[in-house]
């Protein structure tokens, strides 16, 4: 699998100097922007060089068998090319061309032909109908049509992160990567799997167990093999967040029994997620908004939440949201309330804890009291940044969370753009809405519960801290 992300040499089949040639954009990206060190060959009908990449008219004429072949030509040429690739001894192929199983019978027949040749020759394939692989640490990307001058794409490679994605749509891949740029976690690897005639989501979940990945995000339009996906998810020691499109009823069509009539794929899929600890996402946005809860905060090990706000209104809203999400507004113990009373400036010492215009020390005292209370499993701070010191308090809160091994899902009731700017500048995991913050607590708890079920908890409690140090040194080594 590694060769898809970090090949020592590649050939782009279909790269030419024709205007708007998509293969050309891959050569440009590798040479001009990523400064890819290995050899890049171009194969096209004229055998012409492309942006300094030596050109050949056939794969068979290449001076070596590159680690990876990228195919971006009309579908009807692909089966013949795979035969050449097999003969040349190339073992990893990305087929970016469309027009296979998604495009009717002829396409399906071609895809079967490709599968057969690949299997006989031990070739692994990504696609067809995909963008292939991207690895920020290896500074490798074979997506076509990417314009590296767009600021987000530029930055993604500058600061590798620990979130890896398996995505069945190029558009969603770009959306998620761009969005993460405005967040505080970064991309490790992204794979666009297309029709997944060979490499599928289960293979990649397994592969991401062994690298720097901390959170695995998936966007799927169909499941290739439900049982294999379940097996891979069950064995995963990293959170698997999955958004699946479509609620089909193919199972219900020919059903004779009432059971089969009611079992649309979606309900069974939902059950499979529950059984294996897959966190099923409610929206595409959650693919980029939730991972930070796993990388920046300890896991939520119970359901009892204390809300803390400097604006009474948000306390009431959050209570409803917490209950809807299956969490509880904790009833604070008398001794906890006693401690809060002594802090002063507290309007309400019951949950949600509500304060008026207070000094920084008041914030810090309240964080400490709530996090140290036995009855509290996690915090929902809803703190408007009305003074710059609130930001410093939140930074302190992050440290306290690690110390007490309890998470806080922070929301700052300010203009969204202001909150996002603070998040980026001060590196605080701020969620953009109360709903998002509550959901982050809920999924953190769901993941913890799944670890308990799998007996994986021993190793996982200190995950964030340990992985962080590791991640930083990798980041430094890159520079």
């Amino acid at each position, binding site marked *: 699998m590694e060769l898809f992300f970090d090949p020592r040499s590649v050939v782009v089949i279909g790269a030419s100097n024709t205007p708007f040639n998509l293969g050309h954009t891959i050569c440009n990206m590798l040479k001009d922007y990523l400064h890819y060190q290995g050899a890049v060959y171009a194969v096209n009908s004229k055998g012409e060089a492309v942006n300094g990449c030596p050109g050949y008219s056939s794969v068979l004429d290449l001076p070596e068998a590159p680690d990876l072949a990228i195919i971006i030509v009309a579908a009807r040429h692909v089966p013949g090319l795979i035969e050449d690739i097999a003969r040349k001894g190339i073992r990893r192929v990305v087929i970016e061309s469309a027009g296979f199983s998604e495009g009717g019978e002829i396409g399906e027949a071609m895809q079967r032909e490709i599968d057969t040749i690949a299997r006989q020759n031990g070739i692994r394939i990504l696609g067809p109908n995909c963008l292939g692989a991207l690895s920020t640490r290896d500074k490798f990307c074979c997506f076509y049509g990417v314009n590296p001058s767009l600021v987000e794409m530029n930055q993604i490679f500058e600061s590798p992160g620990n979130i890896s994605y398996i995505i069945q749509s190029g558009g969603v891949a770009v959306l998620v990567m761009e969005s993460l740029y405005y967040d505080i976690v970064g991309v490790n690897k992204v794979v666009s799997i297309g029709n997944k005639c060979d490499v599928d989501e289960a293979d990649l979940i397994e592969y991401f167990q062994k690298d720097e990945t901390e959170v695995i995000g998936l966007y799927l339009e*169909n*499941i290739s*093999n*439900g*049982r294999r996906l*379940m097996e891979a998810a069950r064995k995963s020691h990293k959170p698997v967040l999955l958004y699946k499109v479509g609620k089909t009823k*193919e*199972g219900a069509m020919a*059903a*004779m*029994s*009432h*059971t*089969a*009539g*009611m*079992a649309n*794929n979606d*309900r*069974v*899929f*939902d*059950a*499979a997620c*529950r*059984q294996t600890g897959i966190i099923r996402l409610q929206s595409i946005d959650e693919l980029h908004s939730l991972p930070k809860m796993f990388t920046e905060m300890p896991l939520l090990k119970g359901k009892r939440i204390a809300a803390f706000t400097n604006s009474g209104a948000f306390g009431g809203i959050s209570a409803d949201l917490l209950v809807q999400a299956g969490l509880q507004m904790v009833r604070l113990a008398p001794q906890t309330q006693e401690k809060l009373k002594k802090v002063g400036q507290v309007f309400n010492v019951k949950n949600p804890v509500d304060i008026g215009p207070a000094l920084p020390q008041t914030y810090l005292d309240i964080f400490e009291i709530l996090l140290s209370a036995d009855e509290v499993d996690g915090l929902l701070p809803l703190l408007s940044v009305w003074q710059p010191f609130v930001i410093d308090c939140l930074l302190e809160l992050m440290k306290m969370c690690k110390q007490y091994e309890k998470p806080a899902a922070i929301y700052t009731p300010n203009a969204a753009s202001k909150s996002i700017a603070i998040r980026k500048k001060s590196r605080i995991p701020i969620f953009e809405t109360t709903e998002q913050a509550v959901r982050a607590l809920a999924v953190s708890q769901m993941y913890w519960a799944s670890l308990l*079920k799998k007996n994986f908890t021993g190793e996982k409690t200190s995950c964030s801290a340990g992985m962080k140090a590791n991640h930083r040194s990798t980041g430094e080594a890159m520079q």
Partner: protein
Amino acid sequence: MTGKKEKEIRDLLVKALQKGQLALSEYESRKVIASAGVPIPREALVQSRDEAMDQAEKIGFPVVLKGSSPELTHKTEMGMVRVNLKNRDDVGGAFDELSGKGIRLEGFLVQEMVEGRREFVIGLTRDPQFGPSVMFGLGGIFTEAMKDVSFRVAPLSEDDAREMIGEIRAAKLLDAFRGEKAVDREILVRALVGIGHLGMKHEEIAEIDINPLIIRDGKPIAVDALVILKAHRA
């Protein structure tokens, strides 16, 4: 399930498939689910009027009399069920009525009459991506109207079964309710796990409906069951 029992079930399924049956008869269906640990009522398959009356006496009145045949998957709609038969004469009369309908039968089923106010459903289906999956939910006439059901992919752990039981919206009905005893959930757990194993072990079974699963004194009993076989390919 013991090896011997398992072989017995496999033989029954294979024989039914060879005969070109699309489904098992009610009697055979219940035999299959009983092997998986689902409690079933006392019953007997009979061929004659006298036998029906004798067996009814043995089982204890009141009883139910049903026509039994693999082709008969909707007995109530076809008028092939007589309930609440309180004595030998009732049974004899019902036998005459059902046998007079001219429908080809493998026999008649005399069954203990099970009454209860709470009805659930257990099912098995095969999902195109995930394979055999087990369903639990609200049963009887509410099954389709309320669609209050939960699923788990087989094989199920006991925890899976416990979770899915608690997941239906009407889960409160399983607790002590209006003078009725709380349902023995462990029996349900064993039944759900067992049905999942049936799906894993026997490719021949396409779908199963156990509906209604009636709760009597807190104990579930599968009053009706239907085992549908995979499409027969010659």
